[in-house]
């Protein structure tokens, strides 16, 4: 299964994903609660976020996927605030204990599945530095989640996304 985390409008979501199978779409909505750094997802309800909303099971849901595709407006070289809220809620997917990966400290994996991670950023007037930052962030996420790098692309508008890329 593929997971798509996105901040597209409902009609774009419908156009791109409705005909696809084996797809878990996670729409980054304004209603999402932001991570409060409580570590409850590691120490109180391990593997599950303690904040009660539709993003509580991001850890388990990621464990059921082989691919993660992030579609986001690029904001200062980051994901948009809403998509980042979803990414921040993904840490139950990881184990609190550490491992050394590429000479750096990272979290151990909680699950055995390996994610191929791709990102499609959109934005009209992105600077070179913002694109560079965004690329580094996705690569860093890939190391942290112990996944494999997929594709990174920059588009002017979310509408320019084509269904066959997903």
């Amino acid at each position, binding site marked *: 299964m593929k997971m798509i985390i996105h901040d597209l409008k409902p009609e774009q979501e419908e156009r791109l994903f409705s005909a696809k199978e084996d797809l878990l779409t996670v729409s980054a909505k304004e209603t999402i609660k932001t991570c409060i750094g409580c570590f409850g997802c590691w120490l109180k309800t391990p593997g599950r976020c303690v904040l009660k909303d539709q993003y509580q099971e991001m850890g388990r849901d990621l464990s059921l996927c082989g691919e993660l595709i992030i579609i986001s407006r690029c904001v200062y070289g980051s994901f948009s605030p809403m998509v*980042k809220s979803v990414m921040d809620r993904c840490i139950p997917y990881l184990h609190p204990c550490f491992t050394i990966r590429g000479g*750096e400290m990272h979290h151990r994996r909680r699950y055995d599945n390996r994610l191929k991670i791709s990102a499609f950023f959109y934005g009209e007037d992105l600077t070179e530095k913002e694109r560079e930052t965004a690329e*580094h962030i996705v690569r860093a996420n890939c190391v942290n989640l112990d996944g494999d790098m997929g594709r990174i692309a920059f588009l002017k508008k979310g509408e320019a996304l084509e269904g066959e890329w997903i």
Partner: protein
Amino acid sequence: MKIGFINGSPKKEGSASGCLLAELKEILKQPVSEYCIRSRRDTLPDELAEQDVLVMAMPLYVDGVPSHMLSCLTELETLLKGRKITVYAIINCGFFEAAQNRWAIAILQNWCQRTGLKWGQAIGVGGGGMMPMLKDIPPGKGPKKNLSRALETLAKNILNEQSGETLLVSPNFPRFLYRKAAEMGWRRQIKENGLKAKDLSARPSGSC
């Protein structure tokens, strides 16, 4: 000179960001206006626009700026556009290596450029998890040696509204001990919550 601190930790107390700002304040010996942004619903006071210097402290979340602080930055872009403000940042991560903060620092630099503000300097701090435990250790001593030196440099640049190279500071403490202590801490805390150490590895399953 008007100096404003923004503490971007969602924690009410005992945050590493709070500890780092407190140490910086000690060195600055200047009046500072302090603001906390804990969630995206927190309102930003207009007086932020009247500061000469803004120092933002926050934790690293998933290799970047925490989402509530990203929301805050988008609002600040409108509020501060074109103002004559120099921006400094302190970002800390729970990992040992300070360099893991570098992309979050880049995000803040990009924000600064879009908002038309002057970029001052950033400190990336590794081993943030131990920061609250070190608050009684005098500056410049033991694990804080490099950190205190970096904060001194930052303070000097703030007072002169000068820019400086990013400083990346990992603890003066062996990494394997930091890791061991952190993992002992996880095991102790999960037991305090009525669970067993093996529950740290729980794998919630089921269909979504």
